[in-house]
């Protein structure tokens, strides 16, 4: 049973456009929500993370929006660039530090 559901599975966006990836969770024990970026053959790299007491966090072109009541959160990539083409994973973490990952979204940014 997947504890974190991520959509879409893949998306194509034009350069300069906005990429939006959505995630939902059920377990209210999760208390932090990171996003990772992974390039082929590499380990995932932490992009940005948020705690549930914050509704939005922005770092550069990346923004997390968090809706605690709906148990949903999303990643927005503004002004998408070809270098952003990668697989993105959302995750939810508990007090033990264990992360449950979504299935991933493959983002392709076309020139």
């Amino acid at each position, binding site marked *: 049973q*997947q504890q974190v559901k*991520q959509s879409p599975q893949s998306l194509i966006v034009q350069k300069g456009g906005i990429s939006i990836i959505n995630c939902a969770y059920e377990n209210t024990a999760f208390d*932090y929500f*990171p996003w*990772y970026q992974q390039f082929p*053959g*590499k*380990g*995932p*790299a*932490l992009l940005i*993370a*948020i*705690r549930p007491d914050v509704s939005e966090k922005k770092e550069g072109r990346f923004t997390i929006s968090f809706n605690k009541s709906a148990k949903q959160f999303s990643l927005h990539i503004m002004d998408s660039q070809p270098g952003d083409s990668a697989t993105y*994973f959302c*995750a939810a*973490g508990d007090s*033990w*530090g*264990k*992360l*449950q*990952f*979504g*299935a*991933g979204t493959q983002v392709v940014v076309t020139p």
Partner: protein
Amino acid sequence: SQTIHQWPATLVQPVGSPLSLECTVEGTSNPNLYWYRQAAGRGLQLLFYSVGIGQISSEVPQNLSASRPQDRQFILSSKKLLLSDSGFYLCAWRTGLGYTFGSGTRLTVV
């Protein structure tokens, strides 16, 4: 500086052979350490985690095992590999609101 090392980068092993993957971290003490597996085109599955020397928790029953002989060393092992053990194995340690991952080991069981 804080770094995580994982080796080897790639490994091709026959079915039934043993496995040992090593992960070490530098620049920190008493880290929480994790082993994940990523099947081709799939998400990340937590295999084991450790909060200290000799303390191992298993998340998924399988023919893999983990050990933590030293504070900053985490080892993933198998006595006999199966074809289904093929995948991308990632070691990670907890850093703030997330993990820092190693560069991974691509294991192909043939």
